[in-house]
């Protein structure tokens, strides 16, 4: 099987020849420091791209084509150009095309100013929104896509226009103000989300005019999960975000024959059914270190309708494991998620500066060694992981009446 055939099998829930492997998108590449250490470990003087930054905010790199081939990466990512960025004078900081200010902290950039924090609902239209028709944003991508399409058999993916609906709303309005809007001023939240939705739809139209005929998958990044629960309630997700995300997915799928991959970090188990209903084909990144993100249980519950991408944890597993433990975790994720296809193996986020080159190599070596179909992991996994016990879903009344009186 070539990469595109492998992808085709996996997304149609059939066994491929091996688990497809992914690396190199804006939330799934290597931090420049870990990339440099890996290059040193490989002692390959020709490994390039040390300074070719993919995403300025997280300081990751476009990995060298040579490395992608070494790791047998099946995907090649088209990344929209960063446009409308303004440097902030006298600081290591910039404003992005949305007007959000980012300042350098340690080894990445963090939001320090949200331009809509004091903007009233009636003044939203008058804000200096990015121009969705700025042709610079996607220039060069058609040529790249066409080249890959005609000369390789890699799966070609349109990377996300950075930021999603909830994430962008939180960044541009400010985390506390927008959380307050969600809890109490729904009309503001709706007005802002509608504005963002319109912009994304227009941008995706431009994007797909350029690359639509060549891509097999598109990626949309948002975050609705937190470490131990969802970031927002399932109710708010269902009423404010789900219909808008469905509209965006329909819009995109109406313009190109693509699979849609939706990204959310964190714990999102309560709304996976809703995510499927929105039209999502592939869920990324399956943050296994977040509460309840049990890969075996998710595959059992949703594996016939949803594919999984990621699941190799960068928060707890990769930084704090030995190479042997990394290999074991890879085996577990392939076993849990890969039965009958439906799984694309990838680090669940960027490989940070705290991950050793030994663990990076252990990850991709194990993917090759253990990802062959038919899967033969019986001798690798412990009995407890071969026959996991799925915890019964927590019985929780939908709208539990809380004591309305003081105790």
């Amino acid at each position, binding site marked *: 099987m070539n990469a595109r055939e492998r992808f085709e099998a996996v997304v149609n829930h059939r066994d491929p020849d091996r688990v497809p492997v992914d690396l190199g998108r804006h939330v799934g590449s290597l931090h420049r420091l870990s990339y440099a250490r890996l290059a040193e470990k490989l002692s390959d003087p020709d490994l390039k791209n040390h300074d070719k930054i993919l995403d300025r905010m997280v300081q990751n790199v476009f990995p060298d084509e040579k490395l992608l081939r070494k790791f047998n990466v099946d995907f090649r990512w088209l990344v929209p150009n960063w446009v409308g960025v303004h440097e902030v004078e006298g600081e290591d900081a910039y404003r992005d095309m949305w007007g959000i200010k980012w300042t350098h902290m340690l080894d990445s950039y963090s939001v320090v100013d949200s331009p809509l924090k004091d903007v009233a609902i009636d003044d939203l239209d008058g804000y200096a929104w990015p121009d969705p028709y700025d042709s610079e944003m996607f220039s060069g991508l058609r040529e790249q896509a066409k080249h890959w399409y005609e000369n390789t058999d890699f799966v070609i993916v349109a990377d996300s226009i950075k930021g999603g609906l909830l994430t962008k709303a939180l960044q541009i309005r400010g985390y506390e103000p927008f959380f307050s809007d969600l809890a109490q001023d729904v009309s503001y939240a709706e007005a802002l989300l509608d504005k963002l939705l319109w912009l994304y739809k227009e941008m995706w139209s431009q994007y797909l005019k350029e690359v639509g005929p060549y891509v097999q998958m598109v990626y949309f990044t948002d975050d609705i999960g937190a470490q131990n629960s969802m*970031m*927002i309630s399932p109710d708010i997700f269902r009423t404010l975000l789900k219909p808008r995300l469905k509209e965006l997915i329909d819009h995109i799928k109406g313009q190109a024959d693509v699979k849609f991959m939706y990204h959310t970090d964190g714990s999102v188990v309560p709304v996976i059914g809703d995510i499927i209903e929105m039209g999502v084909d592939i869920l990324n990144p399956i943050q296994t270190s977040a509460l309840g993100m049990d890969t075996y249980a998710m595959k059992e519950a949703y594996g016939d309708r949803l594919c999984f991408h990621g699941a190799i944890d960068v*928060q707890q597993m990769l930084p704090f494991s030995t190479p042997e433990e990394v290999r074991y975790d890879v085996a577990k994720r392939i076993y849990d998620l890969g039965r009958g296809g439906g799984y694309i193996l990838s680090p669940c986020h960027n490989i940070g500066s705290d991950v050793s080159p030994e663990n990076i190599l252990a990850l991709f070596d194990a993917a090759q060694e253990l990802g062959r179909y038919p899967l033969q992991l019986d001798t690798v996994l412990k009995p407890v992981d071969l026959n996991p016990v799925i915890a019964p879903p927590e019985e929780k009344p939908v709208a539990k009446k*809380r004591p309305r009186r003081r105790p």
Partner: protein
Amino acid sequence: MSDRKDEILDGLYDHAIEGEAEPVVALTNEGLELGMEPTAILFYALIPAMEEVGRLFEEGTYFVPEMMVAAKAMQGAMHILQPLIAASGIEPVGRFVMGTVKGDIHDIGKNLCDIMLEGVGFEVIDLGVNVAPEAFVEALREHQPHALGMSAFLTTTMGMFKVNIELIGQAGLRDVALIYVGGAPVTQEYCKQVGADGYAPNASALVRDLKARMGISSAEGGKQERKE
């Protein structure tokens, strides 16, 4: 107690849980005008409300947005009550120094902890975000708090816990305060590993753990019992 005073306490409790800041401030002011004790407003309405909010968060009914507006509403009342309580000579139940570690500017979780701690009677000294290790040491020396809390949101910044704790040790201040660590990637195991005293997954868990360790669960509880 007159009916209106009871209504005020009930209203404060309900509106604080719902995160409705305006009525919380209005009822606080009205209660004070009617001669209610600031501590009564705190102990009989606001603290029970925050405890309920913490419970709702932990059971998965409330999420960050609901908890945040509730904490903000509480804070509005606290700004009115705190100076009055301080002026009447009532000592805080303890002092807490808080900060997000160097290289990290995430502060939502930290700010929620601040409000919950103030709500149960702590004096909170918040050093802000991106706090240098030396600033934690200096704050320990200057304020001699009962507890120090450090927050980190990223695996790459939580390494600062160990750096800070070592520096605090070198300054001979390790025994001044209980040291708590928290933030998304932090675990109980990691807390142990860096030599901290406590870890809490959320604000109400922090308050509960700290009160238990300091043996201060009885003060406001006793008052509530008398009330009932």
